[in-house]
C-alpha cells in the first residue's frame, strides 16, 4: 500500500511527541532509513512541507501567519494571539510579515482559514457592493 506524505509526516510527529527531545535525533535517523528502504527519499521535501501543520495538530498548537502593512505593536499582537487562542482552543504562535498591499489592518492566516481585517479587503468589498 502506498504511504502518503501526510502519513509519513504524521508517523514522524507522533514518534517525536511520544519521546523526549533527547531521543529525536535517533528517531529522525530511523525515519531517514525507513524512507530509503521504501524508496521514498525523493519525497522528503514534500514531507517536510506537510510536517509543521501535522505536528501543530497533534500537539495542540497553531501557527498563524499575520500579514500587515506596518509592524504590529506588541499589545496588538498579544490581543490577536489571545483572541485566536480563545477561538480555536489551541496554543497560538503568530508569525508576522510585512506586505504594503494590505494598506492598513492585517490579514490572519491559520490552518485552512483566512481572516481578512485589512483595509485592502475592505476596499474590495466596497467595490463589490457599489457594482451590485
Amino acid at each position, binding site marked *: 500500500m502506498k504511504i*502518503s506524505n*501526510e502519513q509519513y509526516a504524521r508517523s514522524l510527529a507522533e514518534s517525536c511527541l511520544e519521546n523526549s527531545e533527547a531521543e529525536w535525533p535517533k528517531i529522525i535517523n530511523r525515519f531517514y532509513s525507513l524512507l530509503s528502504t521504501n524508496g521514498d527519499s525523493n519525497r522528503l521535501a514534500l514531507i517536510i512541507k506537510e510536517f509543521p501543520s501535522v505536528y501543530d495538530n497533534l500537539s495542540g498548537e497553531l501557527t498563524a501567519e499575520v500579514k500587515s502593512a506596518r509592524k504590529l505593536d506588541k499589545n496588538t499582537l498579544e490581543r490577536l494571539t489571545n483572541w485566536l487562542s480563545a477561538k480555536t482552543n489551541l496554543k497560538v504562535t503568530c508569525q508576522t510579515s510585512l506586505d504594503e498591499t494590505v494598506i492598513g489592518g492585517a490579514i490572519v492566516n491559520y*490552518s*485552512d*482559514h*483566512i*481572516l*481578512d*481585517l485589512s483595509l485592502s*479587503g*475592505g476596499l474590495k*468589498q*466596497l467595490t463589490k*457592493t*457599489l457594482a451590485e
Partner: protein
Amino acid sequence: MSKTKDFIVEQLKSKLSGFEQTAKDQVVGKVLKVADGIALVSGLSTAMMSEILEFECASGVVRGVALNLEENQVGVIILGDYTAIKEGVIVKATGRILEVPVGEQMIGRVVSPLGEAVDGKGAIRSHKFYPVEKIAPGVISRQSVDQPLQTGIKAIDSMVPIGRGQRELIIGDRQIGKTAIAIDTIINQKGQGVKCIYVAIGQKESKVANIVAKLEATGAMEYTTIVLAGASHPASLLYIAPYAGCAMAEYFLDKGEDVLIVYDDLSKHANSYREISLLLRRPPGREAYPGDVFYLHSRLLERSCKLNAEHGGGSITALPIIETQAGDVSAYIPTNVISITDGQIYLEPDMFYQGNRPAINAGLSVSRVGSSAQIKAMKKVAGKLRIEAAQYRELAAFAQFGSDLDEDTKKKLERGKRLFEVFKQGQFSPMSVAEQVLVFYALTAGYMDDVEVEKISEFEAGLKSFVADKNDQVVKDLATNGKWDEVIEKALGELISDYKKTISL
C-alpha cells in the same frame, strides 16, 4: 436642475453610508494539482458537496464546484478557463451551493449553463437564483398526467401522445431527425401557454445558431430559453447544463406554469460525466462509465413532473434525446434512459432513407402515459393507428414474397400505404390537433381509399385549405373542446365529401 443633481449626490451618499465592512473568517485551500479541468485542493475542511469555490488567479476569479470530498483534499471541477490556475493558488469556499439565475429575464435568451448571456444582447440581471441540484418533488405533490402537450407532428400526437409532465425519450442514430422533432414541438407551443427550454449539450455551435435563427423566425424565441454548452466547452459545463436548464424550468413550475424542456443530448452528457469521473479517479464500470451514471440521469428526469392543484398545478415535460450507435438501443446509456422515461420515440434509419420522415418506428415507439394525454376526438380517430401501422409493416414484408393475396390483406396493405403517406410531414410545419383529427378521420373512415397513394399529400393539403376557407364551426369546436360524437362525425364526413367533389381524383 440643481435639485436633480442633489438627488443623485444623496443617492450616492446613501449607498456609501449603508456600507459596512465585515471581517469574514473564510475557509481556504491551496491548489495541489490541476489538469484537464480538474483541480485537487488541500484544506477546505468545511467544503460542501456542490459548493461553489473561487480560485484567486492573477487574471481574476475562476469558479469551480466541489465534487469529491476526501479526507485531505477536495476534487473540484473548474467552470471556466483552467489554464489560469496554477499550483499553490488560493481557493476560497463561498458557502453557497451552485445556483443559476432564473426568471422571466431568461426568456428569449441564449445563456451558458451558469446563466450568463452568450447571445450578445447584454447581461441578464436577475435577483432570483435556484440551486442547480435539487431533490425532485415528492409523491404527495404530484398527480398523474392528464393534459396533452401537442407536438404538431401527426405520427406522434396520434400514436405516441405526450402529456404535460411526461418524460418522452427521442432515440435514434445520428442525422435522423431527433432534434427536428424537438424543435417542431417547441414551435408548436406558440399560444399554448408553455414555456420552452432547449438545453444543447456538446452540440456544434453552428447547429445551435441555426436552431436559434429558426426559432426566431417562427416567433418561438418569445417563450424559449436556450442553454448552450457547446462542443468546445469544458466537460464541467456540459455536466451541469441539463441541471441548470431544469432549475430555470423549476422557477416557472413553482409559479404554476407549464414548461417543456429538451435535453439534446444525454449521450454527450453521460460522456462528459464519464470524463470528469475518470479524471477524479472514480472507479470505472461498464463502458467505463462510473457506477452512479444511472443516478445521473434518474435524478435529472425525476424533476420533470405534473404537480397537483394544491401545489400550483404546474408541469415540466421533458424530451431527452439519446444518440445510438448503429441502431444499438441495448447499449448502457440508452437502456438506462429508456427505463427512466415514460416512453420513447424510436427513429429508424431504414424508414428515414425510404423517405418516411419523421422516421418514427410504430412498433418500438411507445408512450406509457398513453391515451390519457389525448383529446377524445383524437382517441376516437387514431385509437388503432399504431397497431395498423405495425401490422402494415409486417404484411408489407411478407407480401414481397407472394402475389396471391386475399382481398382483406390487399385492403390492409392499401390502407397502410396511405397511412404512411399521411404520417409524412415536412420539418417546421407542425399541424393543429383539429387538422390532425380531420385528416385521420378522412383516412380511417375510408375517404382516402380512392385517392392514389402519390396524391395523398396533395389531397391532405387541399383538404386543410378547403376547411380553413370554409371556417367551419365544427372544426373550430374540435380545436377548443376536443369532443367527439355522431353529429361531429357526420359534419366532418360531409365536409370531406364536399371537398372531394371539388377535386378530380
